[in-house]
């Protein structure tokens, strides 16, 4: 049977073969992700650039502003670094928008849409490769933290668990920015559109200073938004349950759950949005 089928297939469809949707989706996602990672390996300056800004923030807050910020009970650097991790993940997500907008503008997405590949592969492949990049960037930022005196009283395993939360949050954000990138359609606008979305989230948060120092109306927003709860969750994990209760006013579990809820919620809303946007992007 297979011989006959193959003969017909070659005559009618050239070299393309029919595969089960699942096998095709898996290998297509891998192919697209691999393509993005090759680009990353070939332009390592992109990774370096995406860590320059957070490193500057580390140095600035650690050595310039840090002295003026009082956090009860712990050294400021231990408060700062989890915030920096979340900030890095948030701003790093703009890379997804820029990458997709570049592919859209170059006509590559058009070619992908004309190929017998899994429709999901372009977006999933892109977000998965960006997740890999974020793993790398996070590891780098942790090293920077250790260099400036960041300590993890609750152990490295707790830090790794915290990093997983940050990566989950970054993965959710890459879907937000996939939508943005496809909507604006060119890399420069993608970059410009990203900042106004991210700035309030990152700065009106507990990433750099305790929320209690902010005016009341802002606290309501700042205390509950995803950047803050994720930073709090990482701090709670790294500092241990007692410090979490005293410093952050909540249990580790509650912060972790809030952070996961935010990330999953963002994913559930934005992944379908991005897919819809991809379908009519061209």
């Amino acid at each position, binding site marked *: 049977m297979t011989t006959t089928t193959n003969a017909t297939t070659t005559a009618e469809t050239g070299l393309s073969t029919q595969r089960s949707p699942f096998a095709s989706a898996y290998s297509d996602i891998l192919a697209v992700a691999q393509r993005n990672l090759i680009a990353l390996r070939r332009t390592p300056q992109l990774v370096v650039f995406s860590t320059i800004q957070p490193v500057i923030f580390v140095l600035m807050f650690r050595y310039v502003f840090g002295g003026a910020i009082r956090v009860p009970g712990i050294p400021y650097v231990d408060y700062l670094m989890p915030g920096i991790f979340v900030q890095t993940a948030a701003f790093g997500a703009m890379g997804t928008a820029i990458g997709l907008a570049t592919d859209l503008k170059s006509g590559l997405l058009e070619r992908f849409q004309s190929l*017998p590949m899994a429709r999901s592969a372009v977006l999933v492949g892109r977000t998965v490769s960006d997740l890999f990049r974020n793993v790398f960037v996070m590891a780098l930022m942790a090293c920077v933290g250790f260099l400036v005196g960041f300590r993890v009283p609750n152990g490295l395993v707790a830090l790794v668990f915290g990093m997983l939360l940050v990566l989950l949050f970054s993965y959710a954000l890459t879907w937000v920015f996939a939508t943005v990138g496809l909507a604006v359609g060119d890399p420069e606008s993608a970059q410009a559109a990203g900042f106004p979305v991210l700035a309030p989230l990152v700065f009106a948060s507990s990433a750099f200073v305790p929320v209690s120092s902010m005016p009341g109306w802002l606290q309501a927003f700042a205390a509950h938004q995803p950047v803050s709860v994720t930073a709090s969750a990482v701090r709670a994990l790294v500092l241990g349950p007692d410090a979490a209760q005293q410093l952050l006013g909540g249990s580790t579990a509650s912060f972790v759950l809030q952070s996961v809820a935010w990330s999953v919620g963002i994913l559930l809303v934005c992944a379908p949005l991005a897919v819809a946007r991809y379908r009519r992007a061209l």
Partner: protein
Amino acid sequence: MTDTAILVEGLVKRFGTVAALDGIDFEVPTGTVFGLLGPNGAGKTTAVRVLTTILRPDSGRAEVMGHDVVKDAMAVRRRIGLAGQYAAVDSNLTGRENLRLIGKLAQLPKPAIMPRAAELLERFQLTDAADRPVKTYSGGMRRRLDVAASLVQRPPVLLLDEPTTGLDLPSRNELWAMIRELVADGTTVLLTTQYLEEADRLAEDIAVVDGGKVVARDTPANLKARLGSTVIEFGMDSEPAATRAEALLADRVPDPPERDGATVRLRATDGPRMLMELLRALDAHGLVPATLGVREPSLDDVFLALTGHAAEPGVTGMGNGNGAGNGAGPGGRRAARRGRGGAA
């Protein structure tokens, strides 16, 4: 197998209030080259995007090798190759990596991918550059790689959207030769172009499109014959000589010649043959032109004749054949198109 490779019936696609396709019909027999000829904004690219399953039509029907582009999109995608107006390749990857990526995504059997990539690189003279990132390629090389990418899966139907726009003369001729080779192997090609000359060289059949409609459908030769006009210009030494030439030529051509100073201009349906006749006649009367101009009908002439209005400025035929008439680069064209889409 079916005798009709591409079938388009009453296809309509609107972007907001603009009908990019306004009930377009055509049919392409298997193993032939079909040209969609028209200016920017005529709907050529939209037609290609519907046929490649990138856009869904608002109404009407389109089939590729008997498969509906909407209902059976995956089957269509397995049978087509697409090369667009600009080189849709990844500049961070090497040429070989680009073809490998397309091979994977086109669902080629794994062992077939690398040999196929090598074969195409060889055929498009990219073997030496195969392992260099595409960002180091020249424009012509990128375009060749783009066309190579559209052939990775050996598609029975190839859609080329203005494949030679922005190419230099040698690259263009190479590409034309390549297209002829593919057709000799049985591939069906749909080609969009703004250049009558290109459609004339490659296509057996042409549909002239304007405002999302087919305004003429014929062979290139018939189309040109209907337009009727190679323009021939004799530049004489002096006005009296031109006057004599005008009188002499008037008996031999259907339309009366025009004289402008020392220049005599006339239109001919059968350009080359008539030119020889006229030159002999002039020679017999001792009249030797100082300059000679022959101009084949351009897209502008086609448009003027078929629609009563001129094609957009800046798309007046091949000029010197270097495609320099295309002022806007890929970015500009894209921007214009996105702008139109954005109005939706």
